[in-house]
């Protein structure tokens, strides 16, 4: 069994339409992560960095990881850019975990950033669309909204998921986001408003989709032993899993779920000392409302077709049986592509330390983060447990 890895600090910028550029966002996130460490940490103690970003609009295509070292004030640090579309940061996180598990590193930084609102809409849509299958999906006229629209249509047809369940995901996540000052949306929406919003990729409407958001997040990872030098309340990584799938949805046997999520969850729980029943909250990849329902089922919490009932019954609200996305999720907190996987960990750190304020999930000790690349060509699932004090 590999040695255990812990999160000792995390930082998060505001999410939204922001004036800062990608460098400033990254600098802000890593500064906050460094500043969050209970007993302080010297930047010189950091041994390596991993950066998740898609690089929307092409502000820096190659060698973008050097920017992480620069903005950290540690030019010279070995750094890598990890890119798996919307799961970039989830895979960057995993790379950091593996680096420590291997024994090679004691302390690493993992960050994610995306500056999405700099580019005009057509250029942005170009960038977002090229993470799906280009030849068959995009050039049939699909961006990710369309691909998830297809998946939603099948889920509704085959498993009877009602439109109200999709809408309720948006209602819940908007309500949660109002409790999160970093969230992009600070406005509640009603089920009727979601159902009446313009259809952008029927059955999905505008309010079923995550916004276009700027933001960055960063976490500091350490071996469990090293972590004890920096904090008495480390957040331990209890399990990590990752998987891939065909780039094009048309080649998958199932259309009612994302097999990559199922595979990643199986790996994460395989070696973990905790099971699904122990999980107190989930940070799920809800780029579209249907995606949160797919996640609940693919992660093994709800049986196929039952995520709708979970959602409609309030089980996934804060205070419910299994709160999902208490920070507002991608849907309402925002989804700066390359930052999301690390942003989820930031929320989990707050929740497992009891520092989430009005959105605190009472007594939370174990949590799951779920990050999906595109329409499921890649996925990570990472489990966290509050370390003993």
């Amino acid at each position, binding site marked *: 069994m590999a040695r255990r890895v812990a999160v000792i600090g995390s930082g998060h910028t505001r999410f939204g339409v922001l004036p800062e550029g990608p460098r400033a966002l990254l600098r802000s996130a890593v500064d906050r992560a460094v500043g969050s460490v209970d007993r302080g940490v010297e930047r010189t103690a950091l041994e390596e960095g991993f950066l998740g970003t898609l690089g929307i609009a092409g502000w820096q295509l190659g060698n973008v990881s050097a920017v992480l070292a620069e903005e950290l004030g540690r030019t010279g640090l070995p750094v890598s850019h990890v890119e798996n579309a919307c799961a970039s940061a989830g895979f960057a996180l995993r790379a950091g975990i593996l680096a420590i598990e291997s024994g090679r590193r004691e302390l690493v930084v993992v960050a994610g950033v995306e500056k999405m609102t700099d580019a*005009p*809409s*057509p*250029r942005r*849509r*170009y960038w977002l*669309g*090229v993470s799906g*299958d*280009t*030849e*068959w*999906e*995009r*050039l*049939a*006229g*699909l*961006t990710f*909204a*369309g691909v998830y*629209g*297809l*998946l*939603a*249509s*099948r889920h509704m*047809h085959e498993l009877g998921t009602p439109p109200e369940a999709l809408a309720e995901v948006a209602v819940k996540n908007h309500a949660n986001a109002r409790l999160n000052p970093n969230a992009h949306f600070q406005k509640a929406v009603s089920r009727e408003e979601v159902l009446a919003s*313009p*259809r*952008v*990729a*029927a*059955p*999905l409407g505008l309010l079923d989709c995550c916004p276009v958001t700027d933001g960055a997040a960063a976490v500091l990872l350490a071996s469990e032993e090293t972590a004890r030098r920096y904090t008495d309340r480390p957040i331990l990584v209890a399990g990590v899993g990752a998987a891939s799938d065909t780039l*094009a*949805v*048309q*080649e998958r046997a199932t*259309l009612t779920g994302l097999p990559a999520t199922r595979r990643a969850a199986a790996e994460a729980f395989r070696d973990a000392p905790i099971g699904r029943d122990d999980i107190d909250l989930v940070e799920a990849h809800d780029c579209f409302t249907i995606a949160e329902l797919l996640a609940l089922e693919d992660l093994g919490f709800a049986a196929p077709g039952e995520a709708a009932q979970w959602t409609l019954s309030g089980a996934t609200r804060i205070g419910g049986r299994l709160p999902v996305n208490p920070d507002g999720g991608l849907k309402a907190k925002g989804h700066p592509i390359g930052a999301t996987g690390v942003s989820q960990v930031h929320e989990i750190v707050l929740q497992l330390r009891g520092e989430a304020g009005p959105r605190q999930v009472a007594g939370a000790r174990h949590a799951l983060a779920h990050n999906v690349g595109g329409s499921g060509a890649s996925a990570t699932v990472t489990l966290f447990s509050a370390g003993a004090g």
Partner: protein
Amino acid sequence: MTGPSIVSAERVVPGWRAGTTPVEGPDEDAFTLAVAALERLADRAGTDPLPSHLELVGELPGDADALLGEALGDAALDVRHHAATAEGLGRALVAAAGPGSPERDPGHRAVVVVDVAAGRPERAAAAVGLLVAPGDGARIDGYASRSHPADRPPDAARWVDAAGRAQPGLGGDGPRRAVLLAAAAPPVLLAEVERAFPGVRTMVAPWIEPGTAGRHPATRAASVLVDAAADGRPGERVVVAAVDRERTDLLGLTVGETPLVPGGTAAAERGRPTPDGRPFDSPVLGDGPRSEGAYVARARYLENLPARWRFVGERCGACGATTFPPAGRCRACGRADALGPRALPRRGLVVDAATTVGRGAQPTEFDGLVERIGAYAVVLAGWPGEGVRVTLQVADAEPGSVRIGDAVATQLRRLYPLEGAWRYGRKAVLLPPDGADVSRAPSAGSTGP
């Protein structure tokens, strides 16, 4: 002149959108219409693969005629491309009716005529297909051509002489007709024909309007030929004339014993502008995408044409599974050494999932399409029993009208512009409940006098 070659009555089949049915879609042009006409010919005549010899009349975009072989699944397709003139049509018909090449399949040959006005709102596009085979039925009796000055109508005497050469039996016994088309030829010619050949009844294609027919005689000529053959009585001798501004081409034929496929040309041509009244395609190709799009190199596009245009996937000889799109490795068993090509049918797909892409959710390549039609549907559709699917945009359907479980066929259409040229691929088209072809069937007998 070739000898008395035979046009089989059963094999004279109006192509898809025979006649001058208006084009409704914003994603069609002469090339897609030609392919559609040929596919419809194959469907109705029961010949698949399609003829290996193709006489093509009309203007095709770019190197589209060279790509027809790819579209039709015969890389060695012998395509002869004639200008969209009456002369071009005459040559195509004569060539198609002539003896087959001994080196190649001497059987079916096809004539496809496409309207050079394809895609213009003020004049609809159309394609007409004729499948020609030696056998029984109607006989092509002759062909004649006369040039005349562009600034005045054809000389009546010379015209009558040419009609007699094209149809030597016009002066004999039995029912006879002459069909004249093109407004450039004044009705006096009809009177001359009736006077020269007593008992002959003449007719003019009713849709001809001054200032239009002279520009696009080819499509009309083929339409009339189809009509004349379909409408005629066995043994009736017909002469069809296509009058261009500079020449008249005449073709004589004898209607065969076998009843012809009912049908004829469609109603009068009429333009169908887009909802906002602008032309179908005028700004799109010239401007290209409004911003950059996903880049698929032309070499990769051409490499993938068999899969994209004809659904050629792979069949694993070891496990029997189908892989589509082709992957060089069996998706089921992983073996790479037992793969052979497997062409999946272009119709009979069933919709597994459906979405309607509205403004803002389209890839930039489809900005122009969304501007014109507002929204479009995309489906995942599978081949029953094959275990494979394809992602298809839906053509010619109101958004939301395509539902899971619907059966769809496919047609070659324009997909998106890149580097100043259209890229083509298949789109899904809805089938009516009875499974018949959805294309606008020509109305019968509209060319009758």
